[in-house]
């Protein structure tokens, strides 16, 4: 079986999403979560502030008359043109982008290289027109992957860097949530579609973050819809319903071994 073909079934019309799938040479799809104009604008402002601070810090150089002036001119040049390039090539993102969890990659997901970074940053000249990135804004709004003109020419994307897992993934058991392991396994109804199975597992994983009444409500909803009667009434209610669904999850995750 080819793994690339084993991606979950898609609904009739592809739903709108901000994830771009990119197949790696190993045949798996890596999702790149492209970042839109709002976080990018904030990152830009953060970078602007950082540059302004650097200017301020360098301003005492002026004391060194001509030499100092020369140095600060060179610094101005570097900050203007090469600040983003240097940061992008060495660490994937400028400090401003980093603070918002963004990074720049080639459109195949590999870290951005010098040529692409140069292209996208030198073309800021055009994106900046006519006023504070007006052209760039229109381009990001119009493009499916939120790319400005520089990104289009360079073949780059601004994406969210990897998400830090909420729990430290030292222990695998920890991550999947206590509910998956604690609840005594119960066999779910036969013929449960894979998508539903996955929703049940997701419910177990996320139930810690839900309020207790909501948890009960969700569990009751599921059980009601699982029961064959079209009216959707079940006997199991309240906490028992939650336990039952978590039991399903436990069964789905580890089989009967828990017994």
């Amino acid at each position, binding site marked *: *079986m080819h*793994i690339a073909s*084993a991606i*979950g079934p898609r609904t009739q019309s592809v739903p709108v999403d901000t994830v771009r799938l990119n197949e*790696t040479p*190993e045949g*798996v799809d*890596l*999702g790149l979560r492209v970042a839109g104009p709002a976080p990018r604008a904030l990152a830009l402002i953060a970078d602007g502030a950082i540059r302004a601070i650097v200017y301020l810090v360098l301003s005492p150089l002026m004391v060194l*008359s*001509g*030499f100092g*002036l*020369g*140095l*600060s*001119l*060179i610094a101005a*040049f570097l900050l*203007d*043109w090469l600040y983003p390039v240097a940061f992008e090539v*060495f660490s994937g993102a400028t400090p401003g982008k980093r603070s918002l969890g963004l990074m720049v*990659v080639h459109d195949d*997901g*590999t*870290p951005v290289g010098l*040529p692409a970074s*140069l*292209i996208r940053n*030198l073309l*800021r*000249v*055009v994106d900046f027109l006519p006023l504070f990135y007006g052209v760039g804004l229109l381009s990001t709004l119009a493009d499916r992957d939120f790319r400005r*003109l520089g990104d*289009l*020419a360079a*073949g780059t994307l601004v994406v969210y860097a*990897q*998400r830090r*897992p909420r729990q430290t*993934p030292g222990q*695998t*058991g920890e*991550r*999947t*949530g206590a509910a*998956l*392991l604690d609840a005594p396994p119960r066999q779910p109804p036969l013929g449960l579609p*894979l*998508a539903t*199975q*996955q929703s049940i*597992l*997701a419910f*177990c*994983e996320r139930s810690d973050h839900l309020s207790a009444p909501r948890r009960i409500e969700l569990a009751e909803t599921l059980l009601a819809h699982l029961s064959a009667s079209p009216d959707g009434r079940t006997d199991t209610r309240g906490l028992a319903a939650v336990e039952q669904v978590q039991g399903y999850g436990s069964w789905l*995750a*580890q*089989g009967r*071994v828990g017994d």
Partner: protein
Amino acid sequence: MRQGPFEATHATEWADYRRLLADLEGRARRPDPTVDRELARFPALYRRLCAHYALARTRRYAPGLIAQLHDLVRRGYPCLYRRRLAWLAPTLGFMATTFPRTLRSHARVCALAAALFFLPAAFMGLACGQDSELIYSLMSAHQVTELESMYDPGAAKPGRGADRQADTDFQMFGFYVMNNIGIGFRTFGAGLLLGLGSVLILVFNGLTIGAAAGHLTHLGFGSAFWPFVSGHSPFELTAIVISGAAGLLLGRALLAPGHQTRLGALRANARDAVVLVGGAALMLLLAAVVEAFWSSGGAPAGVKYLVGALGWVAVTLYFALAGRAAPGADHGA
């Protein structure tokens, strides 16, 4: 296989992978020699992680597990497919081979850019040489006075006494770097406006430079002007022309993409154009060094002319011959 046993079976592998990954990601700061030997395992582990991720997706394991595996795979991907960074050798190779070759492969665009720059310059130079009023159509009176005072051979240069010379020179170096390379970059970037921006900047710069030269010569200030500009002009003027050519390449991709889509043509041309801009920027850096430390120096005019002529010869030879390898020899990209 259910999720629980699946996780249990592969937990050790994932732990190993995580450890190697952490080392690879933190590599820039402190390489750990003990892990070095193990790193050979990384590609294999990475491929296994890919397989596990795909399996987890196929079997619809819990989304949290899938997300975690996806995260691991995605962090590994750039570690495996990273381009190695090195500076001196690639830069030298770039200037010795890639840049002149790319330039020659776009000779027609470069010729067009040169024409757009030098023809207006020559025209304006000749015209201003005849008519001392013409320069005011381009510059304000204030600018003209400033220009004249700068190259007045009679006037002692303020702030350029022997003791402060080095100081001022460095200031000028900074100025040239910021101003000239900035102009080069802008000339390139403006090419995205259907090439019009580059054309305008090229023509306007040509007109201005021609006007200044013609006007100063007409005033009899040529003895100060020409020796000063002779040293760095071979690098500076050609570099500006090349930046303009890079901008024209972008414009051409948008106006006449040929058999590609506009976006495809833009990307293809931008890849070459950025080579040109990079080369031009390095040339402008050289020009800034020459302009700040040699052109302003006190060498006799004859020597300066000679250096200027040598510069033109060197640039011509460089563009014509550098990077022409023996037939069949392949030096890679």
